[in-house]
């Protein structure tokens, strides 16, 4: 268990709801759920959720910390916002799911091999480097996520797509050398560092 995770377990003891309210984006909405299930039914990836949002809210109240934070479920969110617009209690469900995923990730207990988690990581690295997306590096990074040989295989699968994009001028083969840069990249790095700091301070993450 990561240090941070240990710290949080001790801090909140058996009150997972309080932990979520304090540390998860929009977490203080969780208590407002009335278990109607409209969110669970509205999710395009619903069938792939081990625990749908409304059940997750109930699990949080029931203190099932590990079952929630170690779950793949939140990582299924496609950010389609169907749940948000249909929720009769106006819970910002999409953000709560993002928040839970992010929190689990920070605690280091999110499912290691979850592809979305890994892609998200890669994506963030990619955009924060220069301030903008470098699509070529992003996709290549993506293919080689599971090691060189798999990467080649996936790369080959995706080759037609890639070539199509290149042919139509929608993918820059030279972007490996750069591209996706802001002049203010430096500022951005400083900003993100600061933001991280503040969030840790706010949420009492000793780091």
């Amino acid at each position, binding site marked *: 268990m990561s240090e941070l995770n240990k710290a949080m377990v001790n801090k909140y003891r058996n009150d997972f709801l309080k932990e979520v309210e304090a540390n998860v984006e929009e977490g203080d909405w969780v208590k407002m759920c009335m278990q109607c299930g409209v969110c669970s039914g509205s999710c395009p990836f619903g069938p792939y959720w081990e625990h749908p949002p409304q059940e997750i809210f109930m699990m949080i109240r029931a203190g099932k910390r590990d079952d929630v934070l170690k779950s793949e479920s939140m990582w299924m969110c496609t950010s389609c916002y169907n749940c948000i617009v249909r929720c009769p209690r106006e819970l910002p469900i999409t953000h709560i799911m993002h928040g839970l995923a*992010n929190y689990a990730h920070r605690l280091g207990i999110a499912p290691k091999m979850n592809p979305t988690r890994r892609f998200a990581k890669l994506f963030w690295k990619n955009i924060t480097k220069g301030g903008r997306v470098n699509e070529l590096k992003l996709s290549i990074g993506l293919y080689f996520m599971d090691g060189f040989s798999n990467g080649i295989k996936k790369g080959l699968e995706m080759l037609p797509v890639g070539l199509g994009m290149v042919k139509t001028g929608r993918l820059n083969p030279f972007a490996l050398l750069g591209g996706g840069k802001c002049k203010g990249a430096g500022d951005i790095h400083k900003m993100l560092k600061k933001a991280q700091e503040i969030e840790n301070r706010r949420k009492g993450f000793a780091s």
Partner: protein
Amino acid sequence: MAKKEYSFYPGCSSERKASASNYMVSVESMCKTLDIKLNEIPDWNCCGASIGYAEGGELPRHAMNARNIALSEKHNPGQDIVATCAACWLGAKETHERLSASERLLADTREVLKEAGLDMDYKGQVEIRHMVEVLIEDFGYDQLAKPVVKPLEGIKIAGYVGCQTNRPFGVAGESFENPKYLDKLTEIMGAEPVEKYDQKVTCCGGALAFSEPDKSQAQIKKIIESAYDFGAEMIVTPCPVCQMNVEVYQDQINKKYGTKFRIPVTYYSQLMAVAYGSNAKEAGLDGNIIRAARLEEIAAKPAKK
């Protein structure tokens, strides 16, 4: 028509040789006709997109967007921010909304912006709008119909709105389940909207098309199948991610499901550019992997008026 000016947030995918560069091209042509001046936000950065949450988290994500807003308010004062990309629009709009709702979050964000010397430039007094909103609200369908010189006669088009231009904010006056603006735009451009198209707002998987290709492609299949069922010969969309996901995976889906999909997926701006008289290149049609043949034909024809 008086010139209209906006502070423009193109977003990563609209960059030269990026995945939605052809969107950008068509938007430029469209704006030329409508006499819209887009003042690009100097040195704008990525919005973090929806997928930015996992590593980025709350404050960093807002910081990224706040920087863009601050830059816009600094360099293009008094101008609404207009985005062409759904994710960019949503990201910026969300940050703007949350910062105006939470004193604390605003204070934290200013503290962050200070690092870039922009803390005082963030006022949060701008409207953040999608290009579609500008068209509908600042021009209106009647105005938009006027410049049509090459009506897109006889093309049946399914309007695929997708998620993020539609939820949670959406376009004023449209419903989340059955928005009609793409159909209306299609219609005034002289084409035939497939109004009963029932996958208008189905999610294409978004960023998860990369991480969960199978699950996403199952969604995309539904989206395309229904378009075919209703006799559409083309799909039009306002979102770069939707456009790419629905267009580029058709071969893979065909392999997987034994389907024979080959349907062009265009941007509303491409329809408009062509209808307004642009040639194929100006309308970014060369950027479509699945060629929009019918549009190219019309683009090649001489203007009617």
